[in-house]
């Protein structure tokens, strides 16, 4: 199957790009014939330490795993996180915060060809927190995961932690879903600010994927930035990091 994936992202207004704390994978435009494809987005919790590092580790290292293996997989990433952030003596407040660890949402999607029938494709996704996946087919939203209403976004979603002590409840709350995919299907992955806007638009009979499909084109990046700024000014979207990953399957 051919997969075309493109991303667009923008840091919160008032922050520099270094202060962007979401992550997505792949970052660069992807256009290949593959039998399996993996992608992810993650949203680092801003009040936590080095959340950007943690979000990036989660997104770039996503592999489909059984929930039983998840603790072990996470443990490897937690170790890497700690080594990456603990490189120099820290002031008292940073040392305290490091001890608590970094937190992030996570949404991972896998699309695979069926071994026995290459025309048949399956998708599966895992999610923790409020980063969302929207499955669009023939100009209709067919599925929203894990949240399907703009009312469901609040400021305290469950998050994966770089500190193993805090993950027990989070892992229990991990959600998974799967389904069949056909050629022409599109998957939109995004972090909460854009996801909430998306669902509000759908609830008002809009087709937000039409707008996002265009803005995922890297040549449209300046227009994307302008459009997000306008949404923020009009208070139609919360001021937060925005991350969009558009995946088209042919």
């Amino acid at each position, binding site marked *: 199957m051919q997969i075309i994936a493109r991303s667009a992202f923008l840091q*919160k207004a008032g922050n520099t790009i270094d202060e962007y704390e979401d992550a997505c994978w792949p970052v660069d435009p992807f256009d290949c014939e593959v039998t399996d494809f993996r992608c992810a987005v993650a949203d680092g919790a801003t009040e936590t330490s080095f959340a950007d590092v943690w979000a990036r580790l989660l997104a770039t290292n996503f592999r489909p795993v059984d929930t039983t293996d998840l603790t072990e997989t996470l443990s490897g990433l937690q170790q890497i996180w700690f080594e990456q952030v603990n490189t120099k003596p820290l002031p008292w407040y940073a040392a305290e*915060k490091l001890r608590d660890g970094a937190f992030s949402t996570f949404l991972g999607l896998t699309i695979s060809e069926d071994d026995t029938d290459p025309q048949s494709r399956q998708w599966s996704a895992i999610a923790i927190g409020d980063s969302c996946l929207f499955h669009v087919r023939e100009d209709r939203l067919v599925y929203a995961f894990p949240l399907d209403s703009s009312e469901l976004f609040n400021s305290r979603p469950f998050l994966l932690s770089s500190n193993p002590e805090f993950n027990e409840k989070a892992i229990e709350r991990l959600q998974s879903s799967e389904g069949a995919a056909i050629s022409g299907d599109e998957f939109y992955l995004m972090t909460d600010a854009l996801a909430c806007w998306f669902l509000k638009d759908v609830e008002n009979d809009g087709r937000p994927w039409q707008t996002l499909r265009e803005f995922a084109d890297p040549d449209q990046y300046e227009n994307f930035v302008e459009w997000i700024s306008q949404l923020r000014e009009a208070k139609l979207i919360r001021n937060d990091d925005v991350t969009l990953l558009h995946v088209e399957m042919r």
Partner: protein
Amino acid sequence: MTYTAEISRTNPSCFLFLVDQSGSMKDGFGGDPSKKKADSVADVINRLLQNLVIKCAKSEGVRDYYHVGVIGYGSDVKPILSGSLAGREMVRISELAEQPARIEERTKKVEDGAGGLVAQTIKFPVWLEPTAEGGTPMCRSLATAETILTNWISEHKASFPPIVINLTDGESTDGDPTAAADEIRQLSTDDGQVLLFNIHLSSQQSAAIEFPDNDAGLPDQYAKLLFKISSQLPGYMAGIAKEEGFGVSENSRGFVFNADMVSLISFLDIGTRPGNLR
């Protein structure tokens, strides 16, 4: 809509603590002599400031989402941060981070992951030292707060409104504080009026009255006065209080009468939890 401004480095918010340092603060909570109210209050505020610093700490340093002032009133009315911040009426959170008066090291027993306990050294920064001497010049302290906030607001018109938290264990000794309190509550930013919360620290063994929405259940004129000069909790804060298990209504005020330590800690936590901190 009020109390919705985003707290950011360009539009920081501010907390101003007014701390009763009168002689009676030498007594314990609810008459319990084992720890003086003054010591407990200093401890709780130091921990609160520590948590605020940590909340604002990022990889590159501490982001100035907040400005903080601590004014003591007892034998005098003056700023009471100590160390190199002494005499400062309002400081940025990054200054608190960089300049604690001292850092205490305390050991905490934590689990070692193998069924045992191991001693871990934790650093406790200290900015406030306890004092308990003199009367309770609450009117003067509120007037000082009003001046400080008028200046602050003139430079931060778009910010989330300042929150004043008055911690006291007794009646004002320099007159009725109503007028001075009203002056503070009249101040506003574009996002709403300054909030004045009052917490009365108990000297008796009776139950705390927390976030009342009317003064009917309050035991005396003094409690009713403090209720009258307390602002209503903004919606998001009432939501936090509810989540923490407090019975609050839409008219609940930021006021606790006869608070013990636990009440004090919850009250300060709720009063300083950000509604919209990014």
